């Protein structure tokens, strides 16, 4: 390639949408009943589309392995700000591994290997300083994992390094207090905890803890927010609160969510990627994947034939 040429970072354009992998022949080829679309269409229509959509990350021909076991095989995807990308698939389909590779969290696992390219705003993420990358692409995990410290300290921990070193007094500067309350507001937690920010974060309920983790992830002012099954440990009410939050947040930050819950994927996602055994089987808008899936395996999965 001509070295003067810029790297082909926009290779995956919107017009390649939907991406459909060649389907594998399936033994019992009985066509499942198409999913009911009336209710889902109504739910979806109630949500206004984001004002502007732009691509932040791009995953190109990525292969990921633990040891000799390739768990993600040749996946290409765009991640766009202004929309929510949901990754669905059965256990062991590689969706969490792919998610963790977006901020190089796979690297803390011994024996992890990779191939292909992931870019953030056109830059290869493996050329970025890893901690800078992880501040720009933060993550919320399946289990709420607040630090054993106060609510305030949990959020303040994620803020960018303070310019001057100092003790407790400096940690309470007005800018930091403002940033913390702002993050708590964005995560929809502020009104519930404003009374006592010095309370231990471990005394919050599970749903509050998870929203605290989201606040913490937002406090770093990320460009991309990764959510790894954020509601799987929560009750339906907390789940609804967080789903609402996700839909609101997509305006300011690109969101990727891994979920086992197909209804949830449908409720929050603009685009859906269906993965199976490490391969990206289908990628398209939420309506395309749920209402008009083009691959047989997708049809089987969303109708509950497996997974």
């Amino acid at each position, binding site marked *: 390639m001509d070295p003067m040429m810029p790297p082909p970072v926009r290779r995956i354009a919107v017009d390649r949408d939907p991406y459909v992998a060649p389907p594998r022949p399936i033994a019992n080829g009985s066509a499942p009943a198409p999913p009911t679309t009336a209710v889902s269409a109504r739910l979806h229509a109630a949500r206004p589309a984001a004002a502007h959509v732009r691509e932040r990350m791009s995953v190109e021909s990525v292969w990921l392995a633990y040891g000799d076991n390739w768990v993600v095989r040749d996946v290409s995807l765009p991640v766009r700000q202004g929309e929510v990308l949901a990754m669905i698939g059965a256990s062991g389909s590689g969706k969490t591994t792919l998610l963790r590779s977006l901020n190089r969290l796979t690297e803390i696992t011994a024996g992890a290997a990779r191939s292909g390219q992931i870019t953030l705003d056109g830059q290869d993420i493996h050329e970025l300083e890893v*901690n800078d990358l992880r501040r*720009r692409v*933060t993550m919320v995990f399946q289990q709420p*994992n*607040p*630090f054993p410290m106060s609510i305030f300290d949990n959020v303040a*921990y994620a803020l960018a390094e303070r310019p001057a070193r100092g003790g407790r007094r400096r940690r309470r500067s007005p800018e930091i207090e403002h940033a913390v309350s702002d993050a708590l507001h964005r995560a929809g937690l502020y009104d519930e905890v404003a009374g006592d920010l010095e309370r231990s974060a471990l005394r919050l309920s599970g749903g509050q803890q998870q929203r605290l983790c989201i606040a913490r992830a937002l406090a770093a002012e990320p460009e991309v927010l990764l959510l790894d099954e954020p509601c799987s440990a929560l009750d339906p009410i907390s789940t609804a609160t967080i789903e609402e939050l996700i839909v609101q947040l997509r305006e300011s930050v690109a969101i990727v969510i891994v979920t086992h819950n197909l209804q949830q994927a449908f409720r929050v996602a603009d685009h859906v990627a269906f993965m199976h055994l490490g391969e990206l089987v289908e990628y398209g808008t939420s309506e395309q994947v749920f209402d008009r899936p083009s691959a047989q395996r997708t049809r089987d999965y969303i109708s509950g034939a497996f997974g």
Partner: protein
Amino acid sequence: MPTVELAPAPPSGSAIARAPRERTASWPLVDRIGYWLCWAVGIGLCLLALAIVLYMFVKGISYLRPSLFVESPASSVKQSQSGGFLDPIVGTLIVATIGIAIAMPAGVAIATWLSEYRRPSWLARAVESAIEMIAGVPSVVLAIFGLIIFAQPFLGFLSETDASGTVSGKSFFTAGAVMAVLALPLIVASTREGLTQLSDRLREASFALGRTPATTIRRVLLPAIRPDIASGTVLGLGRIIGDTAIINIVLGLTVTNEGVGHAPLISTLRGTGSTLTSYIYTNSPAGEGSAPQKAYAAAFVLLMVVLGLNGIVTLLTRSSGERDRGLLSRAFRLIPYMPDLSR
């Protein structure tokens, strides 16, 4: 009259069948002997502990006088003129402070490195073996080794150098340093245990926010295991306070704390002295035997200090919800504010 339907009453009397009490009569003879031996040993141990506490309590209380806490000991064959044990109490405090001041940071650092970095792995294994070995070495062996080290001329500033230029190697500084080695394995073990039991989710959460391992350790992991560090430290403290061999050999075993030089605090630390354990040893019938009653009183004080420390360990390790109440635990909250060398 309307009939009131009563809830069924719980069964009573012979209607209740309980699991029969286990009888050993049907057991093989060997099992029966073992069973009764366990009982005997357990009861014997309880009686022994009770006897020690009661005996020291009765003996100690009867000889304990307020004046003993404020008078310096004096060399005298007559018990009435041999003074109190102010100097040994001060000596115990000094040795414990120096020992912990060295052992706590070093132990936490070693444990953190072993648990979080472990690179190169051969070095980590070597350090583990070294810690285990130190934990098994009798304190008297540590003491004579320490004396050899600190009698080197270039370490003369820590103790007294006599007219002929010989370095004694005996002082509060040197005894405290050897005591630190004694306490180190306990602190390392306790800190490692705490770090191992912390969930990897905490580390992941911190890494996912773009924090370095060093920041994660300093601001998340170490504060989270404060109770473990504290209990290891208190155990180490108990070990230091209770040791006699190192005091006898490395502290010089003088009747009062003898300063060296003229600098106010430094002179005491460079000088020799005694602690409660060595005081008990020298005054009991086993030592010079000149003041057995005061030895009993000192032993009582020592026992109370050690029991108090045990109580602190129990408090620190028991209630996880109210961890921050204890004074020691509060002191460990300063850990996040230590200077971060990685930046």
